[in-house]
């Protein structure tokens, strides 16, 4: 592998199969630069958690390589893992103990000063509940405690697998703001999600995975451009078949049960409305529709676009 010391995570041509012949990762490649908030997007079952477990050294991929700040997480575990705080799927917590006791155990394992417990508890907003048993915690509180555990060693890299799972809207906003603050302090954040809207709000870089392959990797602006290409308007008119025929040579038009979806740039919308009115079509409704993750996947997979 090339010099990867300024790259937080480098994944090269990763292959993994839980059962021989049933590939979950099929040559996945990712590059997470230091200092980024990297959104790792994929539908459920796309291979996000498998990728994260491989990066963390919990799985041993058949082919390909993983580096964390240039270190192999399996063969150089000590130096690789001291730089990482992780929350993998649901947090692993001892329910019969309090939140504080869970953090105390983690502090003891890593020989960290006890003062860190108070700092991370404040950071995730769990001060009022930290002396309660974890069995009495809500899903959101457990998620925050998991985040606090990941932050304990003050690592330069945070790997978070769906960290807003189970949080209410205000909890999601709090976690998002907390991650932004941590990023401003210089931490690299690798964040997986199946929600494009969630990633768009926070990430500076995005990687999209589909069936174990990287379908897109780039900045959020590049993703936006890609999305714009897939955006359009929903039109409700009195003669949908006439309109579909009228536009079919020039535009992509999909009849969705009387409601037409016309792939068109946002700024071309007034011209389209004007044209329809001039032709005597009654326009009842026009609504801009942004491309969502599902459509983006369809586009990426349909066009066969893939990372080299």
């Amino acid at each position: 592998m090339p010099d990867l010391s300024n790259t937080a995570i480098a994944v090269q041509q990763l292959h993994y199969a839980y059962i021989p012949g049933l590939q979950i990762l099929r040559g996945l490649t990712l590059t997470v630069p230091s200092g980024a908030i990297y959104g790792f997007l994929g539908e459920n079952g796309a291979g996000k958690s498998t990728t994260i477990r491989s990066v963390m050294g919990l799985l041993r991929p058949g082919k390909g390589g993983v580096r964390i700040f240039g270190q192999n997480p399996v063969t150089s575990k000590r130096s690789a893992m001291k730089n990482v705080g992780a929350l993998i799927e649901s947090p692993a917590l001892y329910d019969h103990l309090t939140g504080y006791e869970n953090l105390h155990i983690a502090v003891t394992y890593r020989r960290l000063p006890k003062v860190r417990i108070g700092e991370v508890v404040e950071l995730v907003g769990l001060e009022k509940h930290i002396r309660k048993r974890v069995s009495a915690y809500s899903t959101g509180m457990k998620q925050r405690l998991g985040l606090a555990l990941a932050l304990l060693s003050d690592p330069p890299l945070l790997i978070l697998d769906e960290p807003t799972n189970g949080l209410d809207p205000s909890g999601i906003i709090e976690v998002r703001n907390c991650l932004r603050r941590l990023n401003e302090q210089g931490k690299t954040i690798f964040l997986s999600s199946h929600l494009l809207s969630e990633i768009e709000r926070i990430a500076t870089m995005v990687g999209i995975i589909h069936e174990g392959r990287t379908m897109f990797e780039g900045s959020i602006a590049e993703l936006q451009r890609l999305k714009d290409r897939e955006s359009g308007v929903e039109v409700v008119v009195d003669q949908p078949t006439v309109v579909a025929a009228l536009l079919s040579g020039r535009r992509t038009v999909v009849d969705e049960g009387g409601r037409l979806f016309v792939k068109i740039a946002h700024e071309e919308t007034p011209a389209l409305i004007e044209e329809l009115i001039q032709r005597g079509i009654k326009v009842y409704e026009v609504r801009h529709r942004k491309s969502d993750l599902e459509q983006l996947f369809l586009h990426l997979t349909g066009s066969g676009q893939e990372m080299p």
Partner: protein
Amino acid sequence: MIRTWVDSYCAEWMKLRRMPVAWISGLSGVLIAGFLFFVFAFKGDMGSNVPSNPWDGFFALSITVFGMLIGPFIILVTHGVVHLEHQTSSWKSLYTLPFDRAAIFFPKSAVILTLVLSIYVVFGLSILLSGLLLGIVVPSFGFLKYVPEFSFLFNRLAHLFFAGVGMIGLQYWISFRWDNYLVPISIGFIGYLASMFTVGKSDFAFIIPYCYPVFISLGLGSGDIGRIGLEWWGALTNIEGYSFLAFLLFLATGYHQESRKEIR
């Protein structure tokens, strides 16, 4: 490395707070000693048959019974400590800590050894207390007139403890191997039941570590150690030798598997 192992050992202890295994290890010795107290107190002729120092017979019989009953407690303690990690899916956190998996695996086994040892210590103290109480409740037994032979109590319990480490090693490996709660417990209890039927009756018992405490109980308790196949190997018996061997074998096998295991 030693510092990491010590930290890991301390962290393991913290997890045991409010856990049933902590209660089991604390109370099992007291329960067995309490049971023996009532047996002696209400079946008075047992104590009065002792010709001279009543403590000798009391200790010998108590430790024999303790050796027969200790198996299930060792199984529950060993399995409880390991199963906690399966139950909370903690392996993914523990195995991503910045040190080798050995620093989790071996200190955890040391915690179990300490917990089991504490059962023996608590039993030893409880049986002394039981004798004193018997001396008060049934003065005719004469417990208050004689001094207990502490070295006998210590030696016999030490032999029993050494005979138990083989079964700790086996149960530890089994509990790591299966994340299900019932399978390791069932295997353990079947092994323990097998010990009741095979010791002294079948050579098969020598290869089942669950039988080793029963071997020591029956062998040293009867005074005729050769009757069930026990031999002295210096200060220890052959069964204790097999027990240490089994402990090392299962610990090594367990670590070999665990160090390569994928956490899915």
